[in-house]
């Protein structure tokens, strides 16, 4: 363990750089993918004929192995093969595929009574969406975002097998030098990053759903 620590100290600046790359490669797609999925999911929850085809397509998108999507990006959008954008866009696709289903179900599961009550109180459709439906859907949306956040972090590592430099590169380095230390270090860092992401999402859910604490406190 002490050798893992000394490996970390000897390569601090490189590891810092790679950690930062890993963070933005996982976080940005999470944000963008979710922001695109929310309106599409909301639309699907209101439009019966759209629901099934959309969920099926999202399911198929989610079955494409990450390494495949990473290497297909240059041919599809003309980026360079080692560009980190390939990874970012591929992870955006996965986040979207996961969240579109979650958000369609989350919006669809908001009780009709709550919506009718809001309508009777004179809320417009838009007000109902932003001050009733969206807040009520937050716990389910949040559960989906937690899954997406954690899996995004570990998916980033796969990109190192085709040479995109981030924390996963430590796995490759350890493999090439038959050295366990960088591998163990990277495993620890990946799990820590995932925990941090998960914690931040949990914190967000907590802040956005004050009524849940109000109910338990009673």
């Amino acid at each position, binding site marked *: 363990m002490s050798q893992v620590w000394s490996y970390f100290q000897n390569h601090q600046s490189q590891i810092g750089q790679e950690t930062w790359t890993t963070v933005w490669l996982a976080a940005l797609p999470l944000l963008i993918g979710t922001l695109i999925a929310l309106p599409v999911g909301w639309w699907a929850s209101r439009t019966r004929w759209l629901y099934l085809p959309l969920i099926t397509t999202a399911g*198929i998108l*989610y*079955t*494409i*192995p*990450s*390494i*495949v*999507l990473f*290497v*297909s990006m*240059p*041919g*599809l959008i*003309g*980026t*360079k*093969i080692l560009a980190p954008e390939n990874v970012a866009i591929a992870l955006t696709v*996965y986040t979207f595929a*996961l969240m579109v*289903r*979650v958000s369609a*179900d*989350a919006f*669809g*599961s908001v009780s009709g009574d709550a919506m009718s009550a809001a309508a009777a109180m004179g809320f417009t459709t838009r007000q109902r969406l932003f001050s009733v439906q969206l807040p009520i859907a937050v716990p*389910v949306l949040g*559960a*989906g975002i937690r*899954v997406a956040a*954690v*899996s995004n*972090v*570990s*998916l980033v*590592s*796969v990109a*190192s*097998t*085709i*040479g995109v430099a981030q924390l*996963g590169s430590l*796995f*490759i380095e*350890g*493999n090439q030098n*038959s*050295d*366990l230390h960088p*591998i*163990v270090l*990277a*495993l620890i860092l*990946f*799990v820590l990053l*995932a*925990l941090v992401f*998960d914690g931040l999402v949990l914190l967000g859910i907590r802040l956005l759903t004050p009524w849940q604490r109000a109910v338990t406190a009673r």
Partner: protein
Amino acid sequence: MTTRILADGTGLPSLSHVPTWLNDPTNWKGSNGIPTLVQQQLTYTAIAVVVALLIALPLGLAIGHTGRGSAAVGGVANAARAVPVLGLLLLLVVWLSPKIHTTSAIPGLVQRGGFPYFVPLIIVLILLAIPPILTNAYAGVQNVDPEVRDAARGMGMTGGEVVRKVELPCALPLIMSGVRSATLQVIATATIAAYVPLLGGLGSLIYSGDQSITDPRYGYPVMVSAGILVAALAVLVDLLLGGVQRLIVSPGLSGRRSRRTPTRGPVTALVGDATAGP
């Protein structure tokens, strides 16, 4: 065949070579042909999922039946998702492989000297497949209507009989969706097998293509073709398992013979279901 340079000068051969490569009969023959690679990929997947099922199903049924340990197992299963498979695989390759000294081979699956790499791969794939099956199995049992369970007990069934004749069949739809998630994950992940020495599967096309990426006949188009094959394989296998699910799940449960429109399940189950990873 000529190399077309992409407009932005990345120098990658165009994707129009993909159908050419897929249609070339020489790519469908021999020990590096598509059928052999598909067979290897499917065999890795089948071994891993079956072993995972043997471990996770009894454990999941027990946890669901007794209600003990579900929080701990749920936490571990969630944390497991954060561990990068590639890291775990290379950890075992560096640490475990040098300790395996057998040179025996399994024809068509493991070549001579391949065992030290085959074992880590299978271990990692099993570890990947256990969480979705396990969590769905105990969630499935816990979701069984308590009245149904009481009725079974009232009829004089023993604990074992309740599990085998009531809880298992009732939990089967969720268990099958866990198995399907696990299979999709494993089939996709088995692609990285080719990153370690002496193993095959469709990933070998991706990683060998990466070595000569600008070559229109062996490089980038082959990587993309392999990708299409993996995705198609994943979809096909999922359809097949969907068929198996129709066969083994009682019609009374799947709602196919009832006139009532099937109600949508609890949303938590849907979220859990989406854990099939790419």
